[in-house]
């Protein structure tokens, strides 16, 4: 890690129009939802869609494009007396910090003002983690694929996979094995998708009554305990660490 690179990446990104636009969009959506809806939990339910779809989409696509556009600059940095892994990790930190800041201003602050309930806090935490996770996945995509359009294509496919296709597969699986006790396996499978983890955690807050039913109770038993919660947090952190870790490893040997 190199503080200076982090600092300059952040300086650069804070003036980026897309980032400013993204922050304003989130802020407008959050304030709009909170002002139109008098029930805080209903607002959280509406904002949940923003957090589950917009945040991962923007995080992964924006980061991927930024990385491709910075390819020459990154090459120049590599020609400087710097460790490769510290360059790459600094870029991750810079990108991550800016995405976190955007989300926090756009969704976090309004949520704290209007709905600082457990469900609101869970929403903020989930959004922050998802931002970092999809920046991390973008790093992995961008480092593995040299061609910009292919890389962006892969980023979109990955987003579609996590936001939509994974759930479709899960639904198919559920129908296929409806007669078997598969709830525990489902907890395991849901860990393979950070968007689903976030969604289930917030479900357990805003749809608690329904989740106390038969299937939900199994989830509640798992996520409701300290152990289950810590495990979930560890899984989310792994979702950040593994893609960025793999990308650093690859970047160390990459030809620029």
């Amino acid at each position, binding site marked *: 890690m190199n503080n200076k690179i982090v600092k300059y990446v952040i300086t650069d990104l804070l003036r980026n129009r897309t980032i400013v636009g993204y922050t304003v969009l989130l802020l407008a959506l959050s304030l709009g939802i909170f002002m139109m809806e008098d*029930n805080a*939990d*209903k607002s959280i*339910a509406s904002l*949940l*869609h923003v957090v*589950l*779809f917009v945040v991962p989409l923007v995080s992964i696509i924006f980061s991927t494009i930024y990385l491709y556009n910075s390819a020459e600059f990154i090459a120049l940095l590599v020609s400087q007396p710097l460790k490769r892994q510290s360059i790459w990790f600094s870029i991750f930190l810079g990108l991550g910090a800016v995405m976190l800041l955007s989300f926090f201003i756009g969704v976090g602050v309004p949520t704290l003002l209007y709905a600082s309930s457990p469900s609101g806090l869970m929403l903020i935490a989930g959004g922050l983690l998802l931002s970092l996770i999809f920046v991390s996945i973008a790093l992995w995509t961008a480092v593995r694929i040299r061609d910009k359009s292919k890389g962006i294509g892969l980023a979109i496919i990955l987003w579609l996979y996590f*936001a*939509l296709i994974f*759930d*479709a597969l*899960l*639904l198919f699986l*559920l*129908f296929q094995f*409806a007669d078997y006790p*598969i*709830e525990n396996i*489902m907890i395991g499978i*849901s860990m393979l998708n950070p968007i*689903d983890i976030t*969604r*289930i955690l*917030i*479900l357990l807050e805003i*749809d*608690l*009554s*329904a*989740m*106390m*039913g*038969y*299937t*939900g*109770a199994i*989830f509640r038993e798992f996520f409701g305990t300290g152990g289950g919660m810590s495990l979930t947090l560890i899984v989310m952190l792994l979702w950040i660490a593994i893609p960025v870790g793999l990308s650093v490893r690859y970047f160390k040997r990459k030809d620029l």
Partner: protein
Amino acid sequence: MRNRLSFVWRISVGLWVISGAVHAKTIEVGQRQANKSIQAAVALANPGDTLIVHGGIYQEGNINITKGIVLIGKDGPVIDGQHKYEPISIRASDVTVQGFTIKNSGQSSMVDMAGIKIYNSSRVTIQDNILDNNFFGIYSQGSKNCLIKNNRLRAYGKAEQYIGNGIHAWKSDSLTIVGNEIIGHRDGIYLEFVTHTQVEDNLSSNNLRYGLHFMFSHNNAYYSNTFRANGAGVAVMYTKHVRMERNIFEENWGDAAYGLLLKDITDSHIQHNIFVKNTTAIFMEGSNRVQILENRFENNGWAIKIMTSCMDNTLTKNNFVQNTFDIATNGGRIANTFDGNYWDKYEGYDLDKNGIGDVPHHPVSLFSMLVERYPTVMLLFRSFMVTLFDRSEKMFPSLTPEKLKDDKPLMKSVIL
């Protein structure tokens, strides 16, 4: 001779009755009194006498009351059943038990032991007592016109089979059960073959099975009770002509947990109740001609699950707010009326400004139908895909019951 004897008999009975009414004795019982034992005092007393029992712990096994006397506890006397006996058995009419702490009744699988048990009597009053850690709390068997008022019942049941019900009535009539607090029993209040009974202002919470449970108990009314966090809420089964009004059903959580379970209920009335945070607020099965009106359903998993075995029920002027699902059903055949409710999920409009939405509201979502069949699908709730499903189903209904709709959805919630 025979005449004379009968005359004397009549005179003496008459005198006895008059002296009883006019010269009712008061007998004091306590450590510092002449009578140290309640049992002895009961033996001394005549019908109509009053026993004042002073503070202290009384371990006298079973106290069997066979005369119409009044027992009043002063300074908190404790009657301890030592986990072996039934502390108080009432086998006479016109008995009052007031102001005692009754604890540690015996426990038996052969007979239903209770803290206070009324056997085939009338006009018994059980009031202002604390019942702690008894197998059954207050038990009325074949009794009439009894008053059970302002008692605090507490038990510490770990499993249903090791604990009895709080207030248990069997084959009784015209009871008044009012202002009691029942915590930690099997069923909070259990009524079987009980008629013309009022259950009012009771709090029944954290009981292992139902907060209120009644079967084959016709013509009863339940007003202003609170049923909170019981194993499975309130169950009413095989009953006609029930009125349930102004009750609060809350936090009855679990797979088989209902705020209110209606099974084979007919010609009944459910009005002005509040259902908050229940997994299923009302579950209806085989119930006909039930009026559900002016209730508030908020933050429940399912507000109402209505099975196709239900007919001619009317739901109107209810508020459905922030429930995960408002209505769920298990089939397409709908023979119930859902008109004129407020649904916060209604997305229609009111161009003529008459307060009633211009397009009907379909309260059953495709996803809720899926969840009925595959409960595990709940895991995918609020995912993008499921939202897409529901949206497209709203536009082109194919699987959700077309006829289950509110033709006059209200634009604003009903003020209750």
